Each structure stands twice: as C-alpha cells, then as structure tokens.
C-alpha cells in the first residue's frame, strides 16, 4: 500500500485521500476545526496547516502522494496554529465561562492543546445578533467561526439547504435560508445532522443546559494530547 510520512511515521493512504483523511484514519491527530470525515473539505480554518517540502499547506485539502514528508507537530506549526486560534477568539465574542459548550468545544480544547494563554490582539468585539426563533435550537452568531460544517452537513447529509454564507471580509456571516432569514422559519429540524455538528457554541439545542457538569465533559475527561510547545512570546 502507498504511504506518506507524518513526522516520520508511515501513514498508508488510498488514491484521492487527503493528508487529513489518511492521517485521521491511521489514528493521528492533525488539529482542525472545519474538517469532518463525512463532509467535503473546505480549507477555511487553516488550523490543519502542515509543512510539506518546506511549504505550508492545509492537510485537509492536500492530496496524499507516495513518500511525501509531512511535518505536523513542530514548534513552528504550533506557534502558527496558536496564532490562528487566537484570531478566531479575537474575531468573535467567545466567553467560555458563560458558554454551555464549554468542555465540549473544539475551539476551546484546541486553544488549550496549543497552549494559548491570551488573546494576543485587541478583541474586535463585533455586534452580532442571536437568533432564538427556532423552537428547538438557537443560533448565536457571536460564537460562529465560519467553519461551514452546518452548511455542508445540511446539504450533504440532510439533503436540505438551510445555510449559506453572506458578506465578505470582516462582514462574512452565516445566513439562514428562510423568508425572514431566521432559523424558526427554515427547514432545520432538531434531529438534522446540521443541528449537531457545530464545533463551538453557535448552534445549540434549547432547554438542555448543563446536563453534564463542566469538568466531566468530553474535552475535560479526555483532553487532547499536549503538543510540542514553543517559547510563547509576549510583551515584556
């Protein structure tokens, strides 16, 4: 079987595999927020940036090829990924202590794994609305990281077309396909894949707060393995 090398370890792959798909299947961890094994890759979050032949590339959109030497866990990549994570925190309004997703949040656990201890930049503090119009779900744009997992799950797994992306640059936002643009009038249902795929606390079920206490949640009990740390520069 064909293989490439991830930090020196051989990873078998099939034709058409991305680095991410093959590495994940082989039990390796490549940090990511917008990738999901059941969905077409997007390449938006860039957390899975790896180094191939000295060039940086996203593992989720790069096709595997025979003998490729891929660097995944290096101090340099950890620093870049931490910066990207800080960017996502800075861009939205992410307040972990008050968020129901805390302990189950991919953004939060990624930040911990990368040793993120501060935001590094001034918060952008955007003013974004909360959409509570749906009987079973609520959508908090303040926490949306534009990973488009819900959008793709709705189209690819649910056979619906509930979400779209609107705007550009700093104004990029998740749109809801409904006459009034709100979730309540959309085709989204509580048991859709799209309703459960959000990696952060942007799309959450209603009336199910704190069923599992913080401290006993997924990322609390099985924290991601620590990554090689670099010297965290900070203003002194």
């Amino acid at each position, binding site marked *: 079987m064909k293989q490439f090398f991830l930090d020196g370890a051989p990873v078998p792959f099939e034709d058409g595999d991305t680095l991410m798909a093959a590495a994940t299947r082989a039990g390796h961890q490549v940090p990511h927020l917008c990738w999901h094994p059941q969905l077409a890759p997007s390449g938006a979050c860039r957390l899975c940036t790896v180094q191939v032949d000295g060039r940086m590339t996203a593992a989720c959109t790069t096709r595997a090829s025979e003998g490729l030497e891929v660097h995944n866990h290096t101090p340099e990549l950890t620093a870049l990924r931490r910066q990207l994570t800080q960017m996502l925190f800075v861009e939205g309004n992410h307040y972990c202590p008050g968020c129901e997703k805390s302990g189950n949040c991919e953004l939060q656990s990624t930040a911990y794994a990368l040793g993120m201890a501060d935001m590094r930049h001034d918060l952008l503090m955007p003013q974004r609305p909360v959409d509570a119009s749906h009987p079973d779900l609520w959508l908090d744009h303040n926490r949306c*990281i534009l990973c488009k997992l819900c959008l793709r799950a709705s189209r690819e797994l649910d056979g619906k077309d509930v979400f779209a992306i609107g705007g*550009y*640059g700093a104004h990029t936002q998740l749109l809801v396909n*409904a006459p009034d643009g709100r979730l309540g009038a959309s085709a989204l249902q509580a048991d859709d894949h799209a309703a459960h795929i959000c990696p952060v606390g942007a799309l959450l079920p209603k009336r199910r707060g704190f069923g599992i206490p913080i401290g006993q949640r997924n990322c609390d009990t099985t924290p991601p393995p620590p990554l090689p740390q670099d010297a965290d520069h900070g203003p002194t």
Partner: protein
Amino acid sequence: MEPSQQDTVAQVLHRHAGQAHRLVQILREVQEHTHWLPAPVLEQVAQGVGLGVATVRGVASFYRFFHLQPVGRYHLLWSDNTTDRMLGSRSLAEQLCKALGVQAGAPAAPGALASVGYTSCTGLGDQGPALLLNQQQVLTRMDGTRVQELAQRILAQEPPSAWPEEWMQVEDHVRRADVLLGSPALEGSALRAVRGRGAQATLDELAASNLRGRGGAGFPTARKWQACRDAPLAPGHTRVVVCNADEGEPGTFKDRVLLSRQADTVFEGMTVAARVLGARTGFLYLRGEYRYLLPSLRAVLARRRTHGLLGPRILGIEGFDFDIDIHVGAGAYVCGEESALIESLEGKRGTPRIRPPFPVEQGYLGQPTCVNNVETFCAAAHIALQGSAWWKGRGTAQSTGTKLHSVSGDCARPGVYEYPLGVSVAQVLHDCGAHEPQAVQVGGPSGTCLAAPEFKRRLGFEDIPTAGAFMVFGVQRDMFEVAHHFAQFFAHESCGFCTPCRVGTQLVLRRMDKLALGHGSPWDLHELHALEQLMHGTTHCGLGATATHALRDTLQRFGPAFAARSPQAHLVPGFDLDAELAPARRATGRNDAQAHLDTLE
C-alpha cells in the same frame, strides 16, 4: 413590489433562461433598473433561478457593487487608490458630500437623489481623481470646479447624458508603444496564420516563444494551454477560454487601454487559443469598473461575427465554432484569482477554489478552462502571426517580449508604457518624468516596494516580476501612510473565506491605525512582522499570501516612517478610552473640556 419592478426582474430572468450560473449577470442587470436589490427582488430572483433565497443573498452581499440597502439615484463612488488620494480625492469627496448634503458611505433613504462613497481603484490612476457613477459610467480628472458643477447638475436632476462629454472622456495615455500597442489591431491575420500552420504547430511556436502569463504569476502560457488541451473531456463538455479582464490590482490600468485600442487583438488571441484547445465557449470577464467599455466591446464582437472571425465555422473551417460572451464583474478584487473568477462566472460568490483540480482540468461548469490575462492573449495573437523568433527578439532569455506598465503617482507623464522586459526601474522613472522619487510600488500593493538604492533593478521574471502597476512616490510622501492605505485596501477586499486573511487583514489594519495615532511601540512592529509571516504561509489563496507584501517591504525599507509612529517604549493599549466615552458625552449632551479624559490630568 411595484409591478414594473416585478416585470423588469421577470424580463432579466427570461433573458438568462433562469439559469443559476447566470446569477451575477442577472443581479447586475436587474440592479441597473432598480438601483438596489430589495428583499422582494432577491426572492423573485431566487425563485426564478431555483436557488434558496439565502444563497442569492449570499452572492449579492459578496460583491461590493450590489446594494442590499438603498442608494441614491445618482450613486457616486470615488476611486480610493493611494494615487487618487495623492491627487486630493478625499478633500474633493468631502466637497461633493457637502454640496449634495450627504455623508460619504452613509446609507441613503429609499428614493434618495444622491449617495457618495468610496471604492477600490477604478483603473484610472493616470487621470484621477476618478468617480464611478451608478457602476456604469466614469468621470475623470475631477477638480474643485467640476465637483461644484457636478453637484449642481445632480441637484437639478439633470440626466448624465446631458453632462459635458469631456467629464467622461477617458484618455489612453499611451506614452511608449512597442509591438503590442504600436501594431494595428489584428482582425483575422493571426487566425489565418493558425489555419496555415495548424493547431499543434501554433502551440509549439507559443512554447518556443517562452511567453509567460502577464497577470503576475508568470506561468508559461503554452504549458497552460497544453494542460487544458490534454485534459479529458466529459460527454457534452467543451473546453473553455476565459480572458481575465478583472484588472483589480490598484494602480493597474493597462488592460483598460488594450480593451479600448486593441480589443480585436484580445479577441483574436482568445480565438487562437480556442483553435489550439478545441474550445467552443469563451468569456471575457470584464471588471465592473470597466462597464463603460461594454457597448464598444460588444460592437467589436458583433463585427467579428459578421466577418466570420467568431461564431460557427470561423474562417470557413469546418468544426471551428467558437463564440465569446462578456461577463461583467461586480466589484471584488479577489475575482482576479482565476478560480475565484470561475466561481463568479458560474454565478457564485467569488471565493478561490481548492486546487487540484486546477481550472485547466475542471474549471467553468466542470469543463477544462484556460484563463489568461488580457495582455497574454494579445501577445499570443502576435506570436501566432509573427512567430516565436520575432517575439524572442525582444526582452531577455527568461522574460521574452514586451510588457505594459501602468505608470501613475508622482510623475509628469502618467500613462501606459510598453517596454521590452528587462527594462530598469530607473529608465521608466526617467521616461515618465518622476519627481524626486523615493519609492516605487511595482506590481501594485501585492507586488514589491522598491526604494531609491534599488532603482537599477530590472522589471522581468529574473529580477522583479510585475503584473504591470508602477506607482511612483516622491520624497514628499509618507511611506507609512502608503502602507496604511494598502492595509485598508486588503482589509476591504479580503473575501472572508479563510481565517488568516479574513482576520489577519483586520488585525494588520488595527495595528496600523494604532500607529497612525502615535500609539505604537516596538512591540506593535514585532506583531506586524508576526502577522505578515503568518499570512504569508497559511492563507487559502495567493491573494491572502501577498496581502502583506507592501507592509513587509515598507517596514524593511522605510523603518524610520514606522519608528516615528512608534514613539512609546512599552506597549500601550490600542483601546482609546476617551473615544469610548463618546456615547456618554452624547447622552449627557456634553462636549466640554471636562468631559474628555486627556484634559483631566
């Protein structure tokens, strides 16, 4: 919705057979009648093309020239390139706003007479400050007198057709012509040469010429054509030839001149490509800012059809069927990236695609698609006619032939200069009459900034590759301001798809804003470096990767301009507490000295 508006939308939908991949054209044509795109229009369009209303809104809200809020019946956008600002555009804009009683960038009431705003460079840097009217017409060489007269005519609700013609006059300003600008436009001679030589031999000739793409990346043109020609074709598919006339790089306007003077040569080059590739479909992707060229370009296409140079059986050759449609963009810099351009052609948001598959394999509607720059097609047409040896007689070994440069900024003779590749920066500066230049931005904000000690360097792939912008900055200019302005441009033009570009361009701008206020420290410069390095390596597309080039170059070459903005020994917050108290001052109706923090020492 008024019946007339409903009818307009229905007519436009009918004209495009309700095809979803025509969405950008549908929205543009509807808006030419309705001025903006209210929700009922979007709903009717969504229904007409069979897409969700959110998808249609998502497309409409991506492009800067589609308005989801009302704009005035006279909607005026000032070209906001740094060279326009150097010519005083910002103060003229203020004068116009004052005369019209509006605020720049402020939303207009439905049915309002006029609105004024800013837009990225409109490609008239040699005759600015320039204005774009209703995204259909341009006004050049604005000055205080013109602004006052313009305001009077708008207030009198005079139609633009009654305005002085010289306001809309666009000069070509060809200052130096070589083979591309100096030859008569090709009206079939290159195609006849291809007929005689054959498709494969033409491609061989192109390969021998070593022509490289003129859009900036410099990919060998023949290799691109070969890859597209070799790509497998699915049943019912054709190969597609696309001319990238989305000349969005600030400071570039040479394609505007080619499309004005050499449109035949551009279309001839596309048709040569079609013959070589076996393509039946062609598009000219014309940037929205050049909408004013649409009637003349359509007339050229019609004439070529009449002369048997387009359409079925070109030059009487059985099976040589090819035609060109013009797709007008709607204001999005990123659409200059070829896969984003194809997305836009397909009626979608112009975000760059994941590659592979490359456009030459799967491009427009999944078909093998060859995208080349306007100037590349012109050069290819001439090479098809005259051969590779003739082309290689100009330029250098790695950079064959000639290249057009759009020269603007602090010089006596702004305009288009065609030189053999390999010309020195100093030569161009001399010829354009630059006044005490301290810097040149070559290739636009995504290109290279050069300082005086580097003016002996040469424009070409061996040294400084360029897409054709050449902005001159005299000693009186503050290069920090230039870099600050470019940061504003990229923050405005980021497509928003990937984290490092979407957030990074904003963070760069915030830091630059902070420096501009004199709140900078060495730490802020360190952070700018870090952002530059991050964005250079991790973005989804090449535009994000080059968005901090100007910053990197100016930091390196004009350190004192940045240091002057970073007087603080230690980091100070970017947060301005006094500014944050403005709502409290408004609420209490106070604006006296005691209501400001800095007076409370």
